[in-house]
């Protein structure tokens, strides 16, 4: 196996994330453990793919904002809270747990990036 070989991992292996809410709109930040993974994530984790991953939550418009200096991404998802903290029937009306739904997304990533993320976590 070479460092360029692709292996399937959960996004959780490459990045961390946090959800915030305002009304019926959620934002989920996505931050690579190793900054070098940012370019790969920019190509892989598109707004379209995130919208499809949240389709069961009735995701409306999904916008990805890129922050290359941090580096990080900010996803803004309309309607996924299905009523928001004041109107939802979901136990987690804020959607605070949704960052870990994003991190459960399967990704085929070069082995070298997965190893680099693991090493970056240990530093």
């Amino acid at each position, binding site marked *: 196996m070479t460092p360029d070989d692709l292996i399937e991992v959960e996004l959780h292996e490459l990045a961390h994330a946090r959800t915030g809410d305002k*009304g019926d709109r959620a934002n989920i*930040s996505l931050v690579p453990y190793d900054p070098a993974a940012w370019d790969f994530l920019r190509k892989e984790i598109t707004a379209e793919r995130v919208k499809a991953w949240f389709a069961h939550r009735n995701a409306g418009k999904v916008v990805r*904002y890129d*922050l290359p200096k*941090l580096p990080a991404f900010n996803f803004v998802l309309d309607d996924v809270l299905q009523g928001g903290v004041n*109107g939802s029937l979901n136990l987690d009306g804020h959607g*605070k747990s949704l960052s870990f739904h994003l991190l459960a997304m399967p990704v085929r990533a070069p082995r070298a990036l997965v190893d680099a993320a693991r090493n970056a*976590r240990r530093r």
Partner: protein
Amino acid sequence: MTQEPLLIGNGAGFSTDYTDAGIPVVDALVRSGKPAVMFYEMLAERTLAIAQRERVANPDGGYAPYMVEALEPVLRTCVENGVPILGNFGSANPMGAARRIHQIAREQGIRGLRVAVVEGDDVRDKLQRIQMSAWEEEDAPKLDALKVISANVYLGGREVAKAMALEPHVVVTGRVTDSALALGPLIHHFGWRVDDWDHLAAGTVVGHLLECGAQVTGGYFADPGWKDVPDLDRVGYPIAECHADGSIVVTKPDGTGGLVSRRTVIEQLLYEIHDPAAYLVPDVTLDLTEVEVEEVGPNRVRVTGARGHERPATLKATICFDGGWLGEGEISYAGPNAFGRARLAKETVEKRIAALGLDCRVRTDLMGFVSVHDGDSGALAAARDGSACQDLRLRLAVDAADERTVERATRELEGLYCAGPAGGGGVRRRQTWRVRTASCLIPRESVDPKFRLVTADDA
């Protein structure tokens, strides 16, 4: 007006936050010997509506319920060491909160306490006369159709700075933008002008990073094995060292648990942000796209590069109105074939509620299988197999306009005790009154902030 750095500490990030969190922060601020302030953020969007209802029931009440418990251990130290305390704990009754703080001072023998009160955020009485416009893509609320409970405009750092000019020991506000509780003291300390956009942006970042308390010091962050955080039970709340050039260092008190790292700071920097190039607060339009975050020592992170653009022309207001009732019920199934039994319970309760013909929305989940990540349709659960799950809790949620309907519906879940599948136990039921919120924009001219100094003689 001075160019010496200002230390800003935070002791609470929401209304039910740990009430002992501020103690080590205040101690660290005092030990530093530098100019310092302390702030408490205790007011969420709908908290105000609940407080407004309390005030109707009790004219002296309606301020943050845990304000007293948070302030009692720190008030004397702060007063004696010249560390002003700021908080939005005034909620629906800032004057009531000020009087209650004076009562603490009397009980503790603290003399000469000065409390500044900011009012004018409450616009409910003049709502019909204000020209409202839509916020983001929402429609402007149609007031006639709503049972309005409260309407409050978000005041900004400029108003908090005016209160600081009264040289108080404590500043009590109602609704202000959370970050304004840090920006206000910075405007007052450094004398930043109303169009000093980059500095106002930097001060907004300070408030934004600190306003959720431990969320920047390892709280809402720990993921064991991936993002380890030491001693989370003793998590230290944040302190920002703020310099005249707008650069800041985020840290926490020595000897506390928690963690301040690039990762904790970046997660909080983007928390509740939509467009990072245009985060709107009353004082400035904040642009985070050039921000850099750098570890400069253990639990010390430097943040630079916030840019500011002209402030928005309008102010944001939140209107709270009656949102009906939420009913919830739960029952557990465990051991062999727990999944089969829990699923039968779920189908049974759904059929029985449907047969009642009530006017309500219904959702069921099997907790321990798939719950919080699923949508109301249950699509995620339908696509998975839960037969290996042996400890499950059926949750029923019902939404209706009145309490009687949700109680009637959740009673069907309690019926499962005797009439449902085998081995169901641990039923809990409750009904919660809901507050709905809507946001809108209103012209700055419609708002008339008031500042009052309340001394021991007045209170």
